């Protein structure tokens, strides 16, 4: 029955800190298996929206559902009652999250990081958690680095471990908050490839990103936000070729200008090096 329900469903969701509004009245459904790219300038509310879906942040208005389950509250006829920590943490098990700055546990090796969810949250036996974690590290291509601590890994490697750590909980939705924004340009590709592989496996994902390769080639749908509101919601091809709103057009024009400035430089740089 839950198969027919959307993976994530937002009903008039708003978030503000006093007078400061992150976003207002956001409503859309994400069907199971879809990959959504959240685009928009910095401060548009993309990251905060993701953090509201797994209730790392409380919301100020509206309702968030994951597979039909109201997140963070118990609804009665008269009110929404805030759930206790233990109950919200149960809901979070099915919603994975990957962060801009990886946030790997610094006192654990790569393998221990990936095992941490199954071991601590699900209480799996060590051997079983280890098998699951090793398979996931193999999937992201880091079997050789499983005993390294985060400080000994490159940014791209850390982010792939972080993706494996989130997948170890077998989440039904994966939220990725600017997964490539903190990476050196030459490391972005390995993380994009990992995310693309997940999309091909049918993993439901919502990705806040500034990376056009993810939005254009990996996502099934682009949601463009600006000033705390959804401005445009369309297929990637339509969004990049014929954006409907002026704001999206300006956003794309700025990106294109930055993007075209780079390629002519590279042949000259290669000459200088050799």
């Amino acid at each position: 029955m839950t198969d027919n329900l959307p993976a994530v469903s937002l009903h008039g969701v708003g978030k503000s800190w006093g007078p400061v509004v992150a976003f207002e009245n956001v409503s859309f459904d994400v069907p199971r298996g879809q990959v959504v790219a959240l685009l928009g300038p910095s401060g548009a509310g993309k990251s905060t929206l993701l953090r509201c879906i797994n209730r790392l942040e409380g919301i100020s208005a509206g309702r968030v559902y994951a597979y039909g389950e109201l997140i963070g509250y118990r609804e009665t006829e008269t009110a929404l009652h805030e759930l206790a920590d233990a109950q919200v943490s149960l809901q979070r098990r099915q919603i994975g999250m990957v962060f801009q700055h990886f946030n790997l546990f610094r006192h654990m090796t790569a393998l221990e990081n990936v095992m941490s969810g199954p071991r601590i949250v699900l209480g799996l036996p060590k051997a079983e958690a280890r098998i699951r974690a090793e398979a996931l590290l193999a999937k992201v291509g880091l079997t050789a680095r499983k005993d390294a601590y985060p400080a000994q890994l490159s940014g791209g490697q850390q982010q792939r471990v972080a993706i494996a750590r989130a997948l170890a909980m077998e989440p039904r939705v994966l939220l990725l908050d600017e997964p490539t924004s903190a990476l050196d340009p030459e490391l972005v590709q390995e993380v994009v490839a990992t995310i693309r592989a997940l999309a091909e496996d049918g993993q439901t994902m919502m990705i806040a990103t500034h990376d056009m390769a993810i939005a254009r080639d990996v996502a099934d749908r682009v949601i463009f936000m600006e000033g705390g509101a959804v401005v445009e919601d369309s297929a990637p091809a339509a969004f990049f070729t014929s954006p409907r709103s002026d704001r999206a057009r300006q956003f794309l024009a700025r990106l294109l200008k930055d993007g075209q400035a780079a390629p002519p430089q590279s042949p000259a740089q290669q000459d200088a090096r050799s």
Partner: protein
Amino acid sequence: MSVAGPAAPVLAAAALPIVAQRRWGGWVVGGIVVAFVAAIVWGGIRSRILDLTIIGEYLFHPAIVAGALNALILGTLALGISSVIGLISALMRLSGNPILSGLSAVYVYLFRGTPMLIQLVFWFNAVPTMFPTITISLPFLPGPLFETPTTVVVTPFLAALAGLSLAEGAYMSEIMRAGIMAIDNGQRSAATALGMTQRQVFTHVVAPQAGRIIVPACGNQYIMLLKSTSLASTIGYPEMLRVVTDIYSSNFRVVELLTVAAIWYLALTALATVIQTGLEKRFPPR
């Protein structure tokens, strides 16, 4: 860029030995300092300010060894108790509950803000004066279950332990609070997003990392506590300073006996340093 510098001199330079910079000034100053220290030591030996045979005689005197052992026991127990008090107080302070947080702040202010010596004397002398008898009674029972004069319960050892633990707990509270706050929120977010409860976030993610951060500070406090046990000499606890004072007040070998005590305190400090270094090595790199 590829045409920078002729090739031949570079090859020749690789074959030559490298001569380190000579710091003549440093060696001259070092020599002067060594000569100065040697002169002081030689002067001390010639004027016989200190008799080495007396030090040797008393270094392993049973009463002094017992005093050192008492200092070690008192200091170590106080460290353990103050760590528990400090952890509870730090968690109260960070709980976000204004009552618990306020209580913790007042505790830290009072016990960090008054001299340890006064606190020790207070527990030993003032408490029995304020509460002459200790009575434990249960409701619905006719007589008291247990009744005794306070002076019987509050021995010098207990008063010293209570005084040191409570005073040190205030410092520990701040050390642990600093350690917990040093863990960035990204670590907590990641753990919470995995589905850990707030308790699991603390025990599995925050505490192990904070522990690594506070080990050097705790080593410091352990050394300070071991030395602060000498304060208990004022309330009649037979720790090292008390024993040494008793001995030199009869044989007048003040310098030698204080030196013996200093040697023992240095030995205890070395022990604490070894434990601290061992703990630091046990934690994985960050």
